């Protein structure tokens, strides 16, 4: 059974249609990448899976169960966790408190304060600092750590490398490689194609709300990716 199945999903913002009958399947333990230009609907796709947006038609199945009528906070309890675009750490809370809030639902698993600090050693000395005072890269590491604290089966990463220094992007991608071995499936959205192709098993390119190309990174030609990305 696939961990996530998206079937013919249409999403609207008012009269504007953001996604046009999107379908794809993610297998357990995969790292699934969604690439595409600004406004292609990638973030909308993640928000819909997380439960922040509702599809007008179509279905989303998580571990075989339809989740369309389940609200976002309950999906966390089922094992879907999202790192939102722009990090969205809780600025007035300390690093430690941000992580504790991430574990609010109390799902059991490998991830706890200790293992998150082990994964992102840079956070450990910052434990008592207010999250709002961290650098962008530190905040991104915190946002990922916070999402892991709910011990998700599926983690949704939205634009994790946007606006960050190369050294921290490298660290975040190293961490990403470790997750599948701990039983976490990843759905990552990126504009930065080069990095994400090196860590993913499967890639789907979004273009104006539709999937323009899909396959294993090794089987895709870079010219085809460029064409699918820019719609040429």
């Amino acid at each position, binding site marked *: 059974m696939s961990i996530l199945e998206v079937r013919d999903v249409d999403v609207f913002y008012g009269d504007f249609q953001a996604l046009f009958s999107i379908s794809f399947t993610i297998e357990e333990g995969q790292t699934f990448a969604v690439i595409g230009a600004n406004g292609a609907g990638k973030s909308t796709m993640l928000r819909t899976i997380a439960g922040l947006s509702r599809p007008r038609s179509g279905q989303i199945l998580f571990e075989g169960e339809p989740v369309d009528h389940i*609200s*976002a906070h309950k999906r966390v309890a089922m094992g879907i966790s999202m790192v*939102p675009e722009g990090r969205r750490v*809780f*600025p007035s*809370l300390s690093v430690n408190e941000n992580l504790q809030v991430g574990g609010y*639902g109390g799902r059991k698993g490998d991830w706890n304060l200790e293992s998150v600090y082990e994964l992102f050693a840079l956070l450990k000395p910052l434990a008592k600092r207010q999250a709002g005072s961290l650098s962008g890269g530190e905040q991104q590491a915190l946002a990922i750590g916070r999402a892991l604290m709910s011990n998700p089966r599926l983690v949704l990463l939205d634009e994790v490398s946007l606006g960050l220094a190369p050294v921290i992007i490298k660290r975040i991608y190293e961490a990403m490689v470790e997750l599948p071995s701990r039983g976490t499936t990843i759905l990552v959205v990126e504009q930065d194609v080069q990095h994400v192709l090196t860590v993913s098993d499967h890639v789907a390119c979004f273009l104006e709300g539709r999937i323009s190309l899909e396959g294993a990174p090794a089987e895709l030609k870079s010219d085809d990716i460029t064409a699918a990305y820019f719609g040429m």
Partner: protein
Amino acid sequence: MNWVNVAVQGILLGGLYALFAVGLALVFGVMRLVNLAHGDLGILAAFVTLGLITHAHLGLTWAALLTIVVMFCAGYVLQRGLLNFTLGTDDTRPIVVTFGLAIIIQNTLLLAFSADEQGLEGGRITTASIHLGHQLAIGWYPLLVFIVAVAIIAGLQLFLNRTKMGRAFRATSDDREAAELMGMNNRHIYSLAMAVSLAIVAVAGIALAIRTTFDPTSGSFNLIFAFEAVIIGGIGSIWGTLVGGVILGLAQTLGAQAFGSGWAILCGDVVFLVILALRPRGFFARTVTA
């Protein structure tokens, strides 16, 4: 010496104002809800206590404790059943709805209890005082109210800083949607915040009713004092409400001493406006309830 006496009374009065203000600050901090019915809900609590004493023949202590529990539950139901639906896109909707709620409460109380002034009999403690020297006397009752206010504010701050639910309140205050992504049911958290807010304003309403007489329209004045205390202290700061309450209490009692008792409220308002002009964000403004 007389001025010192008056100043002490002003500080202690500030404790009562802080009790009215802290619940207002909490719900604004957690869910950006301006509750215009806050003062009337406090007076409603005083009438509930009065009703329990006269009709159910409970003693003041039991009636007050039961009222606090009732107001806690009423706060949860009010938020979950009504006010949650006003939150979201438009900040003015909760203001209009709570304004309407204030009018409903006032008129229901008028129908049920008439416009007569009422009082809660607090017993010996309301007249007893500690004499410190020739002219300085501190009333036991105002002192007790002040201590209760400090204890409630300290307790609330500890709850926000140290408990899982307190962290959830602060996280929701920082970023509602991100909190939802952490598995928090915002509607439940908002309802708990309103429940806590109304439990505290019940204490405030009962404390006021023992101190002085009250009638169904007393709520609006206390709402204004509470707003002034919140804004002087700085929006979002829990301890700031105590500072704001004390400054307001001092301004009123010292003003009354200087110009006559009719000037008390005006002096409080003028000091509030001056502080608003000089420090528009108050003394301890935080963007959140931390």
